[in-house]
């Protein structure tokens, strides 16, 4: 019985090995993808899988969509070679991320790596990639420390956290230039973990550089039971713009407390996270009207970029969901990598790295609202410009950059 079982297993293993060699004889390009596919963040990995497989579908099969590599099958410069993905699960554990990255490179012979959502895992994977001289494209990990390691094989297609805060002030300056909206001072309001502290540090610095006064900088304990005294302080400071950084429960509490105490600034420019969560919008209802938040993607871009609607349809068919900030970045990341492999005309990781380094894709050729994709010496895409969205009549609409806006900004905000 066991003998038969073992023989059966052996047969499966041999068949598996043969089928992979048969695959290898066809032209294909193998890319390793590392995500949390089990554990607490598993949903992120599952969504990423749908997004990245949609991108592979776009490349491998012919689609009438105006994106690079969408028309025609496979990678033209490699004789129509198809992309094959090998998935690995890091379970949000850097040690597992390291071991999976090594396995993908040494055993599956992947030509490049894509991942990883968690910045902690990305930090470790970027080191492994550097050692084996294989490019690693980080698509949504946003810790600024990642691209400051001075690595040659690290590329990040998405923006990092500091770019978001800088964009908020760019937005304020554009408003002044284009719409004569004057912002004299801002109030910062942030939670006390890494996310909030980093956010306010950058906001403080940039406000100083741009000559905008910071009327109040209030740090609050995350998951507080009450924010009344903090809101009183904000009210007393009376700044034109409130810039809050919070996760969802605090965001709900802040907006409700502000309504109770009758405090309304001219505008709220929020740091994404809690202020765009569906549960937040549900909990505060009409009080969300007029809130502005930064983001990297909004579906209303479809009116400016036709490819967005087509890609959204493909993704929805696969996953049953709409594209989000994260999934749009993931899908784009793989397309950027495939474009580089195609331009390299080779599966040699070094040539792919060189091609990535010379990437210059205009924003119009992506589904993102970005100015484009061009990496600096550290591998950071400097053109990954964030957007500003304003909540109006039940949905977030893009209001900045001004040329991509689907609605003019409503200033001062008018609550209902």
């Amino acid at each position, binding site marked *: 019985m066991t003998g038969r079982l073992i023989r059966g297993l052996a047969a499966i293993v041999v068949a598996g090995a043969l089928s992979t060699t048969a695959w290898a004889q066809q032209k294909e390009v193998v890319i390793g993808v590392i*995500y949390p596919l089990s554990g607490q963040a*598993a949903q992120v990995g599952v969504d990423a899988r749908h997004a990245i497989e949609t991108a592979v579908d776009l490349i491998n099969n012919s689609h009438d969509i105006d994106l690079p590599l969408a028309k025609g099958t496979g990678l033209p410069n490699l004789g129509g070679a198809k992309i094959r993905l090998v998935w690995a699960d890091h379970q949000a554990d850097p040690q597992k991320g390291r071991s999976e990255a090594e396995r993908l490179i040494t055993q599956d012979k992947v030509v490049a790596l894509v991942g990883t959502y968690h910045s902690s895992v990305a930090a*470790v994977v970027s080191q492994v990639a550097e050692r084996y001289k294989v490019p690693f494209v980080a698509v949504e990990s946003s810790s600024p420390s990642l691209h400051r390691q001075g690595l040659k094989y690290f590329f990040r297609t998405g923006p990092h956290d500091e770019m978001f805060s800088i964009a908020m002030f760019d937005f304020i300056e554009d408003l002044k230039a284009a719409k004569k909206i004057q912002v004299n001072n801002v109030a910062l309001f942030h939670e006390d973990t890494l996310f909030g502290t980093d956010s306010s540090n950058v906001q403080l610095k940039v406000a100083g550089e741009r000559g905008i006064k910071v009327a109040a900088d209030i740090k609050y304990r995350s998951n507080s039971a009450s924010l009344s005294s903090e809101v009183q302080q904000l009210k007393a400071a009376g700044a034109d713009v409130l810039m809050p950084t919070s996760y969802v429960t605090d965001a709900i509490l802040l907006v409700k407390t502000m309504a109770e105490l009758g405090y309304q600034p001219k505008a709220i420019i929020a740091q994404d996270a809690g202020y765009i969560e569906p549960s937040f919008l549900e909990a505060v209802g009409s009080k969300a009207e007029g809130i502005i938040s930064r983001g990297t993607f909004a579906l209303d871009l479809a009116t400016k970029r036709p490819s967005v609607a087509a890609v959204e349809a493909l993704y929805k068919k696969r996953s049953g969901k709409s594209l989000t900030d994260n999934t749009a970045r993931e899908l784009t990341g793989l397309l950027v990598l495939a474009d580089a492999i195609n331009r390299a005309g080779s599966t040699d990781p070094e040539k792919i790295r060189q091609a990535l380094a010379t990437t210059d894709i205009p924003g119009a050729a992506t589904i993102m609202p970005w100015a484009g994709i061009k990496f600096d010496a550290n591998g950071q895409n400097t053109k990954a410009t964030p957007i500003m969205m304003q909540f109006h009549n039940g949905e977030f609409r893009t209001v900045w950059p001004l040329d991509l806006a689907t609605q003019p900004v409503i200033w001062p905000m008018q609550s209902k």
Partner: protein
Amino acid sequence: MVIFAYPLRLGALVAAVLLVLPLGFTEPFAQNILILTLLYAALSQAWNLLGGYCGQVSLGQALYFGLGAYASSILFTRYGVSPLVGAPVGGALSALLALLLGWPFFRLRGHYFAIATIVIAEAGYLLLLNWDWAGAALGILIPAKGDSWLNFQFQKSKLPYYYGILALASLLWLFSYWIEKSKWGFYWRAVRGSSEAAESLGVSIFRYKMMAAAASAFFTSICGSFYAQYVFYIDPDSTVTFAISVLICLPAVLGGIGTLWGPAVGAAVLIPTSELIRAYLGGTGRGGDLVVYGALIMIVATLIPQGITGLITGAARRCGYRGNAQPEVRRDAS
């Protein structure tokens, strides 16, 4: 089964096999599994000193693991101190902390002691998460400064890591072997058996518990430093979580609590299983790997509660063999 009758001869044999083993497994993935197995064997052997022999079940060993990882990493990245120095410094700090915590904690018994260890480790986790100087939630990235024993960094080959952790695991095994024969070991087991009886016979149970805690914390911390140098990155989530504490005692529980071979046998079963299952079933995103892993642990826990080594020695007994060098394997309530 005579294999456990002469621990030193068996130990030498196992060591000899382990010395040449990586020559047969040259893939980094396989070597990584061997290194992790030895790391968890060592960690569990350290846990076994306090939790096994002395019967004080700690579910907060991650605190010392993290302290070791952070101590050597901070010393290395901020002050350029070699991890070879940083690891024993971390170990000494951990032992000291274990003594400080032991002072109040060893007045608690059984489950209350276990709960206290969980709580204090959780407090350590929150502290590290909010402590900017120690990297807070961002953690510490250890820069690659070139392969050398002084930096304890090896990028080109994993073999130095392998032999490093093999040496540490062997040292811990020898220490356990020595403990089993020494006065300490007998006192520890007496404390586990019945602390009242031990005290009535003149064993200063508080002092011996403190010694066990300090020794266990010291070695756990050294393993933490090794981990940091091996992965090149630490953050509170990968070093001081409850999950790590559980992983540290799991091999000993599975292999046989309070036995010389239990931690090693348990680690040799658990770690390769978990790694292989994740690597070959984990890519589906359906969590099948964790289901299989969990089921395996439940089966072992239900069918052989005395642990795998208990199963082997039990089978040997039934076959009529009576070993005298093998210490009694007991099921322990706490």
